[in-house]
């Protein structure tokens, strides 16, 4: 009865299917990316998404690969996020602790004004390296839903632990210290 292959049918169906595809995409992309968490829960270490961002105040992007061989504590934060204020002193302490042992904290200042971020860093005495993601485009691949979130990356560039929320000493000891012992 329905002449499926008639040109009219196809002409009408194409935009309709396009719309449905779009809605489907919207529904599915709207759910936070949880691949990292799922892999970790299954006991695997997923490769960290490649990150190419400029350092805070600079324009040339650097790649996360530049830190390959080190244990990286990747910390997403913003100067306007209240829990980040509580977390920063702890991260700075850990930076002092792991820097000599081949580890580093790497901040990603997202959706923030550079001068605000600088003021924040001065105020809390942060001197670990800092990247800047002005429009927050890098956060989707990490499945970010809020600030702060922290990803611990081993020497081979694989994510070994994730904390969606503020980190504490227990988390850092548990997930960072063993990685420092690993050789790349």
């Amino acid at each position: 009865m329905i002449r499926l292959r008639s040109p009219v049918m196809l002409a009408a169906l194409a935009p309709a299917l396009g719309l449905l595809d779009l809605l489907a995409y919207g529904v599915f992309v709207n759910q936070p990316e949880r691949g990292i968490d799922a892999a970790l829960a299954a006991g695997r270490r997923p490769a960290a998404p490649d990150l190419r961002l400029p350092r805070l105040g600079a324009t040339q992007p650097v790649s996360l690969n530049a830190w390959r061989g080190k244990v990286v504590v990747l910390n997403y934060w913003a100067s306007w996020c209240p829990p980040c204020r509580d977390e920063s002193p702890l991260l700075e302490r850990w930076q002092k602790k792991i820097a000599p042992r081949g580890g580093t904290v790497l901040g990603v200042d997202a959706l923030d004004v550079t001068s605000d971020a600088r003021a924040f860093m001065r105020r809390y005495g942060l001197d670990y390296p800092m990247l800047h993601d002005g429009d927050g485009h890098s956060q989707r691949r990490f499945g970010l839903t809020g600030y702060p979130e922290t990803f611990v990356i081993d020497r081979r560039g694989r994510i070994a632990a994730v904390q969606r929320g503020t980190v504490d000493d227990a988390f850092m000891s548990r997930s960072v210290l063993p990685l420092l012992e690993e050789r790349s």
Partner: protein
Amino acid sequence: MRRAPAAVLVALALGLMPAAASAACPRASLPDIEGQVMCLVCGVPLNLADSPQASRERDFIERMIDRCRSTSQIKAALVSQYGPRVLALPDDSGFNAAVYIVPALMLLLGAGGAALAVRWWSSRGGGAPAPAAPALSPADARRLEAEMERWER
């Protein structure tokens, strides 16, 4: 909001020098700029946004206004901080051009279609007046009048 005093201090410190000139400088207006940029965390125009990120963005704009920057300078500064997505009017490079082209194209297509339909209809009838219908018989005419009056009551 907690940082408002600090912001004022910064604004004062930065604003002292051009303060003398500020009377003459063209003041950009916050409400005006708010309508042209987005709050990136919330994905809505800045004037509607109430998040902490939005208030930082607003502080930033206010500082620039106090420094006598023009609207376009402020927008450029915002782009350098937040990337081009901060502007509510998307740029027309690459795929984003579609946001401008497609609606115009569709409107043209629609206009073309409507014009074709009109031409087709008027040519089918031959433009010429339809042959005059024969006059109704008196009985029919009376019946029609009666039915119409009933319908109108």
